[in-house]
Protein backbone atom coordinates (compact mmCIF):
# COMPACT_ATOMS: atom_id res chain seq x y z
CA UNK A 1 0.00 0.00 0.00
CA UNK A 2 0.98 3.57 -0.63
CA UNK A 3 0.44 6.58 1.59
CA UNK A 4 1.48 10.14 0.87
CA UNK A 5 1.31 13.03 3.30
CA UNK A 6 1.44 16.74 2.38
CA UNK A 7 3.47 15.98 -0.72
CA UNK A 8 4.69 18.80 -2.91
CA UNK A 9 7.44 19.31 -5.43
CA UNK A 10 9.19 22.48 -6.60
CA UNK A 11 10.35 22.79 -10.20
CA UNK A 12 13.49 24.83 -10.78
CA UNK A 13 12.86 26.53 -7.42
CA UNK A 14 9.93 28.44 -8.88
CA UNK A 15 6.77 26.51 -9.68
CA UNK A 16 5.47 24.40 -6.85
CA UNK A 17 2.94 21.62 -7.22
CA UNK A 18 1.16 20.31 -4.17
CA UNK A 19 -0.52 16.93 -4.21
CA UNK A 20 -3.44 15.83 -2.07
CA UNK A 21 -2.82 13.04 0.44
CA UNK A 22 -3.24 9.58 -1.04
CA UNK A 23 -4.14 6.26 0.56
CA UNK A 24 -3.90 3.39 -1.87
CA UNK A 25 -4.46 -0.09 -0.53
CA UNK A 26 -2.61 -3.15 -1.80
CA UNK A 27 -4.10 -4.67 -4.96
CA UNK A 28 -6.04 -1.51 -5.83
CA UNK A 29 -6.13 -0.12 -9.33
CA UNK A 30 -6.03 3.62 -9.81
CA UNK A 31 -6.02 6.06 -12.67
CA UNK A 32 -4.02 9.21 -12.18
CA UNK A 33 -5.83 11.58 -14.52
CA UNK A 34 -4.86 15.07 -15.54
CA UNK A 35 -3.86 17.26 -18.41
CA UNK A 36 -0.29 17.61 -19.60
CA UNK A 37 1.72 19.61 -17.12
CA UNK A 38 -0.61 18.81 -14.25
CA UNK A 39 2.13 16.86 -12.51
CA UNK A 40 1.00 13.27 -13.22
CA UNK A 41 4.45 12.11 -14.18
CA UNK A 42 6.01 13.98 -11.30
CA UNK A 43 3.70 12.32 -8.80
CA UNK A 44 4.24 8.91 -10.40
CA UNK A 45 8.01 9.35 -10.31
CA UNK A 46 7.87 10.54 -6.72
CA UNK A 47 5.87 7.49 -5.72
CA UNK A 48 8.21 5.29 -7.72
CA UNK A 49 11.30 6.73 -6.11
CA UNK A 50 12.59 7.98 -9.45
CA UNK A 51 12.49 11.57 -8.25
CA UNK A 52 13.62 12.96 -4.92
CA UNK A 53 13.91 16.28 -3.17
CA UNK A 54 10.22 16.68 -2.49
CA UNK A 55 8.49 18.02 0.56
CA UNK A 56 6.27 15.68 2.53
CA UNK A 57 6.45 11.93 2.99
CA UNK A 58 5.72 8.85 0.91
CA UNK A 59 5.29 5.48 2.54
CA UNK A 60 5.30 2.31 0.45
CA UNK A 61 4.64 -1.07 2.08
CA UNK A 62 5.52 0.42 5.44
CA UNK A 63 8.84 1.91 4.27
CA UNK A 64 9.20 5.64 4.18
CA UNK A 65 10.95 5.93 0.83
CA UNK A 66 11.59 9.64 1.32
CA UNK A 67 14.13 8.74 3.98
CA UNK A 68 16.04 6.20 1.88
CA UNK A 69 19.49 6.96 0.56
CA UNK A 70 20.13 6.89 -3.17
CA UNK A 71 21.42 3.31 -3.21
CA UNK A 72 18.78 2.06 -0.75
CA UNK A 73 16.20 3.58 -3.04
CA UNK A 74 17.73 1.77 -6.03
CA UNK A 75 17.38 -1.54 -4.25
CA UNK A 76 13.87 -0.71 -3.07
CA UNK A 77 12.78 0.13 -6.63
CA UNK A 78 14.13 -3.12 -7.95
CA UNK A 79 12.22 -5.21 -5.43
CA UNK A 80 8.91 -3.39 -5.06
CA UNK A 81 8.13 -1.68 -8.33
CA UNK A 82 7.42 -2.49 -11.94
CA UNK A 83 7.50 0.40 -14.37
CA UNK A 84 5.78 0.73 -17.73
CA UNK A 85 6.31 3.76 -19.92
CA UNK A 86 4.67 5.16 -23.03
CA UNK A 87 7.54 3.85 -25.11
CA UNK A 88 8.61 0.36 -24.18
CA UNK A 89 12.30 1.20 -23.52
CA UNK A 90 13.52 -2.33 -24.02
CA UNK A 91 17.27 -2.89 -24.35
CA UNK A 92 17.57 -3.28 -28.10
CA UNK A 93 20.90 -5.10 -27.89
CA UNK A 94 19.36 -8.00 -25.96
CA UNK A 95 16.87 -10.75 -26.74
CA UNK A 96 13.40 -10.90 -25.19
CA UNK A 97 14.53 -13.40 -22.58
CA UNK A 98 17.66 -11.41 -21.73
CA UNK A 99 15.57 -8.26 -21.37
CA UNK A 100 13.34 -10.01 -18.90
CA UNK A 101 16.25 -11.51 -16.96
CA UNK A 102 17.69 -8.02 -16.52
CA UNK A 103 14.87 -7.32 -14.05
CA UNK A 104 15.90 -9.87 -11.41
CA UNK A 105 19.60 -9.32 -12.18
CA UNK A 106 19.45 -5.56 -11.57
CA UNK A 107 17.17 -6.01 -8.55
CA UNK A 108 19.63 -8.48 -7.06
CA UNK A 109 17.16 -11.37 -7.11
CA UNK A 110 17.74 -14.89 -8.40
CA UNK A 111 17.22 -15.26 -12.12
CA UNK A 112 14.45 -17.79 -12.52
CA UNK A 113 13.94 -18.91 -16.11
CA UNK A 114 10.70 -20.72 -15.34
CA UNK A 115 9.28 -17.44 -14.02
CA UNK A 116 10.23 -15.83 -17.36
CA UNK A 117 8.42 -18.63 -19.15
CA UNK A 118 5.39 -18.20 -16.90
CA UNK A 119 5.07 -14.47 -17.50
CA UNK A 120 5.60 -14.84 -21.23
CA UNK A 121 2.79 -17.41 -21.32
CA UNK A 122 0.55 -15.09 -19.30
CA UNK A 123 1.10 -12.41 -21.92
CA UNK A 124 0.83 -14.78 -24.88
CA UNK A 125 4.33 -14.19 -26.26
CA UNK A 126 6.12 -17.38 -25.16
CA UNK A 127 7.18 -18.09 -28.75
CA UNK A 128 9.09 -14.78 -28.95
CA UNK A 129 11.53 -15.65 -26.16
CA UNK A 130 14.68 -15.93 -28.25
CA UNK A 131 13.90 -13.05 -30.61
CA UNK A 132 15.77 -9.76 -30.77
CA UNK A 133 13.77 -6.67 -29.87
CA UNK A 134 14.00 -5.28 -33.41
CA UNK A 135 12.22 -8.38 -34.73
CA UNK A 136 9.11 -7.76 -32.61
CA UNK A 137 6.01 -5.88 -33.64
CA UNK A 138 5.07 -2.84 -31.57
CA UNK A 139 2.33 -4.74 -29.79
CA UNK A 140 4.68 -7.61 -28.95
CA UNK A 141 7.30 -5.19 -27.68
CA UNK A 142 4.78 -3.59 -25.38
CA UNK A 143 3.86 -6.98 -23.99
CA UNK A 144 7.53 -7.66 -23.33
CA UNK A 145 7.73 -4.35 -21.47
CA UNK A 146 4.72 -5.35 -19.38
CA UNK A 147 6.23 -8.79 -18.78
CA UNK A 148 9.44 -7.14 -17.57
CA UNK A 149 7.50 -4.91 -15.18
CA UNK A 150 5.71 -7.83 -13.51
CA UNK A 151 8.52 -10.38 -13.59
CA UNK A 152 9.83 -9.69 -10.09
CA UNK A 153 6.27 -9.87 -8.71
CA UNK A 154 6.35 -6.25 -7.62
CA UNK A 155 3.77 -5.00 -5.15
CA UNK A 156 3.30 -1.82 -7.17
CA UNK A 157 3.07 -1.39 -10.94
CA UNK A 158 3.43 2.19 -12.11
CA UNK A 159 2.50 2.96 -15.70
CA UNK A 160 3.08 6.32 -17.35
CA UNK A 161 0.86 6.97 -20.38
CA UNK A 162 0.99 3.33 -21.51
CA UNK A 163 -1.85 3.74 -24.01
CA UNK A 164 -1.81 7.32 -25.24
CA UNK A 165 -0.03 6.49 -28.50
CA UNK A 166 -2.27 3.53 -29.28
CA UNK A 167 -5.49 3.22 -31.31
CA UNK A 168 -8.71 2.23 -29.61
CA UNK A 169 -8.31 -1.50 -30.14
CA UNK A 170 -4.74 -1.64 -28.93
CA UNK A 171 -5.57 0.64 -26.03
CA UNK A 172 -8.32 -1.71 -24.98
CA UNK A 173 -6.07 -4.73 -25.28
CA UNK A 174 -3.19 -3.15 -23.35
CA UNK A 175 -5.39 -1.87 -20.55
CA UNK A 176 -7.00 -5.27 -20.24
CA UNK A 177 -3.59 -6.87 -20.12
CA UNK A 178 -2.37 -4.46 -17.47
CA UNK A 179 -5.40 -5.00 -15.29
CA UNK A 180 -5.35 -8.77 -15.58
CA UNK A 181 -1.60 -9.08 -15.15
CA UNK A 182 -1.72 -6.85 -12.07
CA UNK A 183 -4.48 -9.02 -10.65
CA UNK A 184 -2.68 -12.23 -11.42
CA UNK A 185 0.40 -10.90 -9.63
CA UNK A 186 -1.55 -9.25 -6.81
CA UNK A 187 0.00 -5.91 -7.51
CA UNK A 188 -1.26 -2.39 -7.00
CA UNK A 189 -1.68 -0.73 -10.38
CA UNK A 190 -1.38 3.00 -10.84
CA UNK A 191 -1.68 4.43 -14.34
CA UNK A 192 -0.87 8.06 -14.97
CA UNK A 193 -2.64 9.19 -18.12
CA UNK A 194 -4.71 11.80 -19.87
CA UNK A 195 -6.35 9.02 -21.86
CA UNK A 196 -10.05 9.10 -20.97
CA UNK A 197 -10.61 5.72 -22.63
CA UNK A 198 -9.11 3.95 -19.63
CA UNK A 199 -11.92 5.13 -17.39
CA UNK A 200 -14.07 2.35 -18.81
CA UNK A 201 -11.84 -0.25 -17.29
CA UNK A 202 -10.44 1.30 -14.12
CA UNK A 203 -12.90 3.07 -11.88
CA UNK A 204 -10.78 4.47 -9.05
CA UNK A 205 -9.69 7.92 -10.16
CA UNK A 206 -7.24 10.43 -8.81
CA UNK A 207 -7.85 13.69 -10.59
CA UNK A 208 -5.02 16.19 -10.65
Amino acid at each position, binding site marked *: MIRTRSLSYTYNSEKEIAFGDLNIAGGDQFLLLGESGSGKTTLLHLMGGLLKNQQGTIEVNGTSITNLSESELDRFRG*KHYGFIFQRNHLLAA*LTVEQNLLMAPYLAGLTQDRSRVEEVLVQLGIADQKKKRIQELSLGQAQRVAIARAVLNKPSVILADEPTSALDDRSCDRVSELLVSVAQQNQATLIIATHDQRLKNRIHHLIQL
Partner: protein
Amino acid sequence: MNLFALIFAYLKARPLNTLLNILLLSLGIAMITILLLFSNQLQQKISDNTKGIDLVVGAKGSPLQLILCNVFHIDFPTGNIKLQEADRLAKHRLVKNAIPMALGDSYQNYRLVGTTRAYADLYKAELETGTWWQQDMEVTIGATVARLLNLKLDDTFASAHGLSEAGHAHEEHPFVVKGILKPTFSVLDNLILTNVSSIWLVHEHSEEEHETIKPDSLSASVLVPTAFASDSTRELTALLLKYRNPIAAIQLPRYINSQTNMQAASPSFEAARLFSILGVGIDALTGFAYVLIFISALSIFIALYNSLKERKYDLAIMRSMGASRSKLLWATQLEGVVLTFCGSVLGVALGHVVLFLFTTLVTESQTAGVNAFVFYVEELYLLVGSVVLGIICSLIPSFQAYRTDIHKVLAQG
Protein backbone atom coordinates in the same frame (compact mmCIF):
# COMPACT_ATOMS: atom_id res chain seq x y z
CA MET B 1 22.14 -12.06 -17.20
CA ASN B 2 25.20 -10.38 -15.89
CA LEU B 3 27.35 -7.37 -16.65
CA PHE B 4 29.53 -9.25 -19.12
CA ALA B 5 26.55 -10.62 -21.06
CA LEU B 6 25.15 -7.10 -21.27
CA ILE B 7 28.46 -5.64 -22.45
CA PHE B 8 28.98 -8.33 -25.05
CA ALA B 9 25.44 -7.78 -26.30
CA TYR B 10 26.19 -4.05 -26.61
CA LEU B 11 29.47 -4.71 -28.43
CA LYS B 12 27.78 -7.25 -30.69
CA ALA B 13 25.02 -4.79 -31.51
CA ARG B 14 27.62 -2.54 -33.19
CA PRO B 15 29.90 -5.14 -34.79
CA LEU B 16 31.71 -2.89 -37.25
CA ASN B 17 32.45 -0.22 -34.73
CA THR B 18 33.67 -2.80 -32.22
CA LEU B 19 35.83 -4.49 -34.86
CA LEU B 20 37.36 -1.19 -35.94
CA ASN B 21 38.23 -0.23 -32.39
CA ILE B 22 39.76 -3.59 -31.56
CA LEU B 23 41.71 -3.76 -34.82
CA LEU B 24 43.02 -0.23 -34.52
CA LEU B 25 44.35 -0.87 -31.07
CA SER B 26 45.69 -4.29 -31.94
CA LEU B 27 47.72 -2.85 -34.83
CA GLY B 28 49.47 -0.44 -32.49
CA ILE B 29 50.04 -3.14 -29.90
CA ALA B 30 51.25 -5.62 -32.53
CA MET B 31 53.78 -3.10 -33.78
CA ILE B 32 55.12 -2.51 -30.28
CA THR B 33 55.25 -6.26 -29.67
CA ILE B 34 57.26 -6.86 -32.85
CA LEU B 35 59.67 -4.06 -32.04
CA LEU B 36 59.99 -5.36 -28.52
CA LEU B 37 60.73 -8.91 -29.63
CA PHE B 38 63.07 -7.73 -32.32
CA SER B 39 65.12 -5.23 -30.36
CA ASN B 40 65.26 -7.35 -27.21
CA GLN B 41 66.46 -10.40 -29.10
CA LEU B 42 68.84 -8.36 -31.18
CA GLN B 43 70.34 -6.84 -28.06
CA GLN B 44 70.53 -10.28 -26.48
CA LYS B 45 72.18 -11.66 -29.61
CA ILE B 46 74.68 -8.86 -29.69
CA SER B 47 75.68 -9.33 -26.09
CA ASP B 48 75.76 -13.13 -26.46
CA ASN B 49 77.94 -12.91 -29.55
CA THR B 50 80.40 -10.48 -28.05
CA LYS B 51 80.75 -12.41 -24.80
CA GLY B 52 84.30 -13.45 -24.16
CA ILE B 53 85.75 -11.18 -26.83
CA ASP B 54 87.41 -8.12 -25.37
CA LEU B 55 89.10 -6.83 -28.46
CA VAL B 56 89.16 -7.57 -32.17
CA VAL B 57 92.38 -6.84 -34.02
CA GLY B 58 92.42 -6.61 -37.79
CA ALA B 59 93.58 -4.54 -40.71
CA LYS B 60 93.10 -0.82 -40.50
CA GLY B 61 89.74 0.50 -41.65
CA SER B 62 86.36 1.01 -40.09
CA PRO B 63 86.22 -0.36 -36.53
CA LEU B 64 82.52 -1.08 -36.90
CA GLN B 65 83.21 -3.05 -40.07
CA LEU B 66 85.91 -5.01 -38.27
CA ILE B 67 83.42 -6.01 -35.57
CA LEU B 68 80.56 -6.71 -37.98
CA CYS B 69 82.83 -8.89 -40.06
CA ASN B 70 84.69 -10.85 -37.41
CA VAL B 71 82.17 -11.07 -34.59
CA PHE B 72 78.78 -10.99 -36.29
CA HIS B 73 79.94 -12.24 -39.69
CA ILE B 74 77.79 -9.76 -41.56
CA ASP B 75 80.20 -7.32 -43.23
CA PHE B 76 83.30 -7.94 -45.36
CA PRO B 77 86.83 -8.02 -43.98
CA THR B 78 88.81 -4.82 -43.74
CA GLY B 79 91.83 -6.58 -45.13
CA ASN B 80 94.44 -8.98 -43.87
CA ILE B 81 97.06 -8.86 -41.17
CA LYS B 82 100.41 -10.64 -41.20
CA LEU B 83 100.57 -13.84 -39.22
CA GLN B 84 103.97 -12.68 -37.95
CA GLU B 85 102.50 -9.54 -36.43
CA ALA B 86 99.48 -11.37 -35.10
CA ASP B 87 101.75 -13.91 -33.49
CA ARG B 88 103.75 -11.24 -31.80
CA LEU B 89 100.60 -9.69 -30.41
CA ALA B 90 99.31 -13.06 -29.23
CA LYS B 91 102.42 -13.38 -27.08
CA HIS B 92 101.96 -9.91 -25.58
CA ARG B 93 101.95 -9.95 -21.78
CA LEU B 94 98.53 -8.20 -21.58
CA VAL B 95 96.85 -10.79 -23.80
CA LYS B 96 95.35 -13.73 -22.01
CA ASN B 97 94.50 -15.59 -25.16
CA ALA B 98 94.12 -14.93 -28.85
CA ILE B 99 91.98 -16.69 -31.42
CA PRO B 100 92.96 -16.45 -35.10
CA MET B 101 90.28 -15.80 -37.69
CA ALA B 102 90.83 -16.53 -41.37
CA LEU B 103 87.90 -15.56 -43.55
CA GLY B 104 87.47 -15.30 -47.27
CA ASP B 105 85.47 -18.28 -48.43
CA SER B 106 81.86 -19.26 -48.17
CA TYR B 107 79.52 -22.03 -49.20
CA GLN B 108 75.98 -21.11 -50.23
CA ASN B 109 76.30 -17.80 -48.38
CA TYR B 110 77.48 -19.46 -45.19
CA ARG B 111 80.93 -18.42 -44.15
CA LEU B 112 83.92 -20.63 -43.72
CA VAL B 113 85.97 -19.61 -40.75
CA GLY B 114 89.51 -20.81 -40.37
CA THR B 115 90.12 -20.75 -36.65
CA THR B 116 90.90 -22.91 -33.62
CA ARG B 117 88.80 -24.87 -31.19
CA ALA B 118 89.01 -21.94 -28.78
CA TYR B 119 86.61 -20.05 -31.07
CA ALA B 120 83.95 -22.75 -30.72
CA ASP B 121 84.57 -22.85 -26.96
CA LEU B 122 83.80 -19.15 -26.83
CA TYR B 123 80.16 -19.99 -27.53
CA LYS B 124 80.22 -23.20 -25.47
CA ALA B 125 79.56 -25.18 -28.63
CA GLU B 126 78.96 -28.90 -28.33
CA LEU B 127 78.89 -31.58 -30.97
CA GLU B 128 75.56 -32.96 -32.08
CA THR B 129 77.17 -35.70 -34.19
CA GLY B 130 80.61 -36.46 -35.60
CA THR B 131 83.87 -34.97 -34.44
CA TRP B 132 85.69 -31.67 -34.43
CA TRP B 133 87.78 -30.81 -37.47
CA GLN B 134 91.31 -32.16 -37.17
CA GLN B 135 93.01 -32.35 -40.55
CA ASP B 136 93.11 -29.80 -43.30
CA MET B 137 89.90 -29.63 -45.36
CA GLU B 138 87.79 -31.03 -42.56
CA VAL B 139 84.91 -28.90 -41.29
CA THR B 140 82.50 -28.86 -38.38
CA ILE B 141 79.32 -27.01 -39.23
CA GLY B 142 76.83 -24.96 -37.25
CA ALA B 143 73.29 -26.20 -36.61
CA THR B 144 71.53 -23.75 -38.94
CA VAL B 145 73.97 -24.48 -41.76
CA ALA B 146 73.32 -28.19 -41.42
CA ARG B 147 69.57 -27.74 -41.33
CA LEU B 148 69.15 -25.25 -44.15
CA LEU B 149 71.75 -26.69 -46.49
CA ASN B 150 70.78 -30.23 -45.55
CA LEU B 151 74.41 -31.24 -44.98
CA LYS B 152 75.22 -34.52 -43.28
CA LEU B 153 78.37 -36.17 -42.00
CA ASP B 154 80.95 -36.99 -44.69
CA ASP B 155 79.20 -34.77 -47.24
CA THR B 156 81.67 -32.87 -49.35
CA PHE B 157 81.36 -29.44 -50.89
CA ALA B 158 83.48 -26.90 -52.70
CA SER B 159 83.72 -23.48 -51.18
CA ALA B 160 83.37 -20.30 -53.20
CA HIS B 161 85.78 -17.44 -53.01
CA GLY B 162 84.32 -14.39 -51.38
CA LEU B 163 81.46 -14.21 -48.99
CA SER B 164 78.60 -14.32 -51.44
CA GLU B 165 77.31 -17.00 -53.78
CA ALA B 166 78.71 -15.47 -56.95
CA GLY B 167 82.34 -16.18 -56.04
CA HIS B 168 84.69 -18.39 -57.96
CA ALA B 169 84.43 -21.97 -56.75
CA HIS B 170 87.46 -23.72 -55.33
CA GLU B 171 86.51 -27.04 -56.78
CA GLU B 172 89.94 -28.57 -56.64
CA HIS B 173 89.86 -28.50 -52.84
CA PRO B 174 86.57 -29.97 -51.55
CA PHE B 175 85.77 -29.80 -47.85
CA VAL B 176 84.37 -32.73 -45.95
CA VAL B 177 81.85 -32.42 -43.11
CA LYS B 178 83.24 -34.13 -40.01
CA GLY B 179 80.88 -32.87 -37.38
CA ILE B 180 77.65 -30.97 -36.75
CA LEU B 181 77.22 -28.67 -33.75
CA LYS B 182 74.25 -28.42 -31.44
CA PRO B 183 72.39 -25.13 -31.75
CA THR B 184 74.16 -22.45 -29.70
CA PHE B 185 71.72 -19.65 -30.66
CA SER B 186 74.71 -17.56 -31.54
CA VAL B 187 76.43 -16.60 -34.75
CA LEU B 188 78.20 -19.96 -34.61
CA ASP B 189 75.04 -21.69 -35.89
CA ASN B 190 75.56 -19.98 -39.24
CA LEU B 191 79.25 -20.78 -39.64
CA ILE B 192 81.37 -23.52 -41.14
CA LEU B 193 84.42 -24.03 -38.97
CA THR B 194 87.73 -25.37 -40.13
CA ASN B 195 91.40 -24.78 -39.39
CA VAL B 196 93.36 -21.80 -40.63
CA SER B 197 95.58 -23.78 -42.94
CA SER B 198 92.58 -25.12 -44.87
CA ILE B 199 91.65 -21.56 -45.78
CA TRP B 200 95.24 -20.97 -46.86
CA LEU B 201 95.18 -24.19 -48.86
CA VAL B 202 92.19 -23.34 -51.01
CA HIS B 203 93.74 -20.00 -51.85
CA GLU B 204 97.12 -21.36 -52.96
CA HIS B 205 96.76 -21.35 -56.71
CA SER B 206 100.27 -21.02 -58.04
CA GLU B 207 102.35 -22.22 -55.13
CA GLU B 208 102.27 -25.83 -56.22
CA GLU B 209 104.91 -26.89 -53.80
CA HIS B 210 103.66 -26.39 -50.37
CA GLU B 211 106.13 -26.74 -47.57
CA THR B 212 105.53 -30.18 -46.23
CA ILE B 213 108.09 -29.88 -43.47
CA LYS B 214 106.45 -29.62 -40.10
CA PRO B 215 107.82 -26.64 -38.27
CA ASP B 216 109.56 -27.55 -35.04
CA SER B 217 108.16 -26.34 -31.78
CA LEU B 218 110.69 -23.52 -31.44
CA SER B 219 109.72 -21.69 -34.54
CA ALA B 220 106.07 -22.73 -34.78
CA SER B 221 103.44 -20.03 -34.75
CA VAL B 222 101.46 -19.71 -31.52
CA LEU B 223 98.25 -19.12 -33.38
CA VAL B 224 98.61 -21.66 -36.16
CA PRO B 225 100.97 -24.41 -34.99
CA THR B 226 101.29 -25.84 -38.50
CA ALA B 227 102.92 -22.66 -39.74
CA PHE B 228 106.28 -21.09 -39.04
CA ALA B 229 106.16 -18.09 -36.81
CA SER B 230 108.63 -16.44 -39.13
CA ASP B 231 106.61 -17.15 -42.27
CA SER B 232 106.04 -13.69 -43.74
CA THR B 233 103.71 -14.86 -46.49
CA ARG B 234 100.97 -16.11 -44.21
CA GLU B 235 98.06 -13.82 -43.37
CA LEU B 236 95.00 -13.80 -41.11
CA THR B 237 91.83 -11.70 -41.21
CA ALA B 238 91.67 -10.88 -37.56
CA LEU B 239 92.51 -11.85 -34.02
CA LEU B 240 90.00 -12.11 -31.19
CA LEU B 241 91.68 -11.15 -27.92
CA LYS B 242 90.91 -11.62 -24.30
CA TYR B 243 92.58 -9.28 -21.81
CA ARG B 244 94.77 -10.62 -19.08
CA ASN B 245 93.80 -7.84 -16.67
CA PRO B 246 91.87 -4.52 -16.57
CA ILE B 247 94.99 -2.54 -17.36
CA ALA B 248 94.99 -4.18 -20.77
CA ALA B 249 91.69 -2.49 -21.60
CA ILE B 250 93.46 0.86 -21.35
CA GLN B 251 96.87 0.05 -22.75
CA LEU B 252 96.32 -2.59 -25.39
CA PRO B 253 93.99 -0.77 -27.83
CA ARG B 254 96.24 2.30 -27.73
CA TYR B 255 99.35 0.23 -28.26
CA ILE B 256 97.85 -1.64 -31.23
CA ASN B 257 96.41 1.44 -32.90
CA SER B 258 99.53 3.52 -32.59
CA GLN B 259 102.44 1.06 -32.65
CA THR B 260 101.32 -1.52 -35.24
CA ASN B 261 99.85 -1.62 -38.72
CA MET B 262 96.72 -3.16 -37.24
CA GLN B 263 93.67 -1.64 -35.62
CA ALA B 264 91.86 -2.72 -32.47
CA ALA B 265 88.14 -2.40 -31.92
CA SER B 266 86.04 -3.24 -28.89
CA PRO B 267 82.96 -5.32 -29.74
CA SER B 268 80.88 -4.03 -26.84
CA PHE B 269 81.66 -0.42 -27.70
CA GLU B 270 81.00 -0.85 -31.40
CA ALA B 271 77.86 -2.90 -30.74
CA ALA B 272 76.53 -0.18 -28.47
CA ARG B 273 77.27 2.36 -31.20
CA LEU B 274 75.50 0.19 -33.75
CA PHE B 275 72.53 -0.23 -31.52
CA SER B 276 72.22 3.47 -30.92
CA ILE B 277 72.10 3.94 -34.70
CA LEU B 278 69.40 1.27 -35.03
CA GLY B 279 67.70 2.72 -31.99
CA VAL B 280 66.69 5.83 -33.91
CA GLY B 281 64.67 3.73 -36.33
CA ILE B 282 63.17 1.67 -33.53
CA ASP B 283 62.24 4.85 -31.65
CA ALA B 284 60.56 6.28 -34.74
CA LEU B 285 58.51 3.11 -35.26
CA THR B 286 57.63 2.95 -31.57
CA GLY B 287 56.46 6.55 -31.75
CA PHE B 288 54.27 5.69 -34.69
CA ALA B 289 52.83 2.73 -32.78
CA TYR B 290 51.96 5.00 -29.87
CA VAL B 291 50.21 7.38 -32.26
CA LEU B 292 48.12 4.42 -33.47
CA ILE B 293 47.30 3.49 -29.90
CA PHE B 294 46.37 7.07 -29.08
CA ILE B 295 44.03 7.23 -32.08
CA SER B 296 42.42 3.94 -31.13
CA ALA B 297 41.90 5.19 -27.57
CA LEU B 298 40.27 8.30 -29.00
CA SER B 299 38.09 6.14 -31.23
CA ILE B 300 37.01 4.01 -28.28
CA PHE B 301 36.25 7.13 -26.28
CA ILE B 302 34.13 8.57 -29.10
CA ALA B 303 32.31 5.27 -29.60
CA LEU B 304 31.46 5.02 -25.91
CA TYR B 305 30.50 8.67 -25.73
CA ASN B 306 28.16 8.39 -28.71
CA SER B 307 26.64 5.10 -27.67
CA LEU B 308 25.86 6.61 -24.30
CA LYS B 309 23.63 9.15 -25.99
CA GLU B 310 21.78 6.34 -27.71
CA ARG B 311 21.60 4.44 -24.46
CA LYS B 312 20.31 7.13 -22.18
CA TYR B 313 16.92 5.38 -22.03
CA ASP B 314 18.64 2.05 -21.42
CA LEU B 315 20.53 3.56 -18.54
CA ALA B 316 17.44 5.21 -17.07
CA ILE B 317 15.34 2.07 -17.37
CA MET B 318 18.10 0.02 -15.76
CA ARG B 319 18.16 2.45 -12.88
CA SER B 320 14.36 2.13 -12.56
CA MET B 321 14.83 -1.64 -12.36
CA GLY B 322 17.13 -1.27 -9.39
CA ALA B 323 20.60 -0.74 -10.88
CA SER B 324 22.68 1.58 -8.75
CA ARG B 325 24.61 4.52 -10.14
CA SER B 326 27.88 2.76 -9.54
CA LYS B 327 26.72 -0.35 -11.41
CA LEU B 328 26.17 1.73 -14.54
CA LEU B 329 29.56 3.37 -13.98
CA TRP B 330 31.24 -0.02 -13.80
CA ALA B 331 29.33 -1.30 -16.80
CA THR B 332 30.62 1.56 -18.93
CA GLN B 333 34.14 1.26 -17.55
CA LEU B 334 34.09 -2.45 -18.20
CA GLU B 335 32.97 -1.94 -21.76
CA GLY B 336 35.98 0.27 -22.42
CA VAL B 337 38.30 -2.16 -20.68
CA VAL B 338 36.91 -5.16 -22.56
CA LEU B 339 37.56 -3.33 -25.84
CA THR B 340 41.13 -2.37 -25.02
CA PHE B 341 41.93 -5.72 -23.43
CA CYS B 342 40.65 -7.64 -26.47
CA GLY B 343 42.59 -5.25 -28.67
CA SER B 344 45.84 -5.74 -26.81
CA VAL B 345 45.54 -9.52 -26.52
CA LEU B 346 44.87 -9.67 -30.24
CA GLY B 347 47.72 -7.24 -30.83
CA VAL B 348 50.27 -9.27 -28.87
CA ALA B 349 49.15 -12.45 -30.64
CA LEU B 350 49.28 -10.66 -33.98
CA GLY B 351 52.79 -9.43 -33.24
CA HIS B 352 54.05 -12.94 -32.56
CA VAL B 353 52.27 -14.41 -35.58
CA VAL B 354 53.56 -11.71 -37.93
CA LEU B 355 57.09 -12.20 -36.65
CA PHE B 356 56.69 -15.96 -36.99
CA LEU B 357 55.52 -15.61 -40.60
CA PHE B 358 58.35 -13.18 -41.28
CA THR B 359 60.99 -15.51 -39.86
CA THR B 360 59.63 -18.56 -41.70
CA LEU B 361 58.96 -16.91 -45.04
CA VAL B 362 62.02 -14.66 -45.30
CA THR B 363 65.09 -16.90 -45.29
CA GLU B 364 67.54 -14.10 -44.55
CA SER B 365 65.78 -13.39 -41.28
CA GLN B 366 66.44 -16.94 -40.09
CA THR B 367 70.15 -16.32 -39.86
CA ALA B 368 69.38 -13.38 -37.57
CA GLY B 369 68.02 -16.03 -35.22
CA VAL B 370 64.96 -14.08 -34.05
CA ASN B 371 62.49 -16.37 -32.35
CA ALA B 372 58.81 -15.39 -32.63
CA PHE B 373 57.76 -17.45 -29.65
CA VAL B 374 59.76 -15.84 -26.93
CA PHE B 375 57.65 -13.93 -24.42
CA TYR B 376 58.83 -10.96 -22.44
CA VAL B 377 57.46 -9.51 -19.23
CA GLU B 378 56.98 -6.23 -21.12
CA GLU B 379 54.11 -7.88 -22.99
CA LEU B 380 52.37 -8.32 -19.65
CA TYR B 381 52.90 -4.61 -19.05
CA LEU B 382 51.25 -3.99 -22.43
CA LEU B 383 48.17 -5.92 -21.30
CA VAL B 384 48.04 -4.12 -17.97
CA GLY B 385 48.60 -0.82 -19.77
CA SER B 386 45.70 -1.53 -22.08
CA VAL B 387 43.40 -2.06 -19.12
CA VAL B 388 44.50 1.31 -17.77
CA LEU B 389 43.93 2.79 -21.22
CA GLY B 390 40.41 1.33 -21.24
CA ILE B 391 39.70 2.90 -17.87
CA ILE B 392 41.00 6.27 -19.04
CA CYS B 393 39.00 6.40 -22.26
CA SER B 394 35.79 5.35 -20.55
CA LEU B 395 36.27 7.80 -17.70
CA ILE B 396 34.09 10.59 -19.07
CA PRO B 397 31.40 8.30 -20.56
CA SER B 398 31.14 6.29 -17.35
CA PHE B 399 30.83 9.46 -15.31
CA GLN B 400 27.99 10.51 -17.59
CA ALA B 401 26.34 7.15 -17.10
CA TYR B 402 26.74 7.68 -13.37
CA ARG B 403 25.02 11.05 -13.57
CA THR B 404 22.01 9.91 -15.63
CA ASP B 405 18.97 11.81 -14.38
CA ILE B 406 16.34 9.09 -14.52
CA HIS B 407 13.40 11.35 -13.87
CA LYS B 408 14.27 13.74 -16.71
CA VAL B 409 15.00 10.99 -19.22
CA LEU B 410 11.93 8.92 -18.41
CA ALA B 411 9.59 11.90 -18.24
CA GLN B 412 10.55 12.72 -21.82
CA GLY B 413 8.58 9.76 -23.07
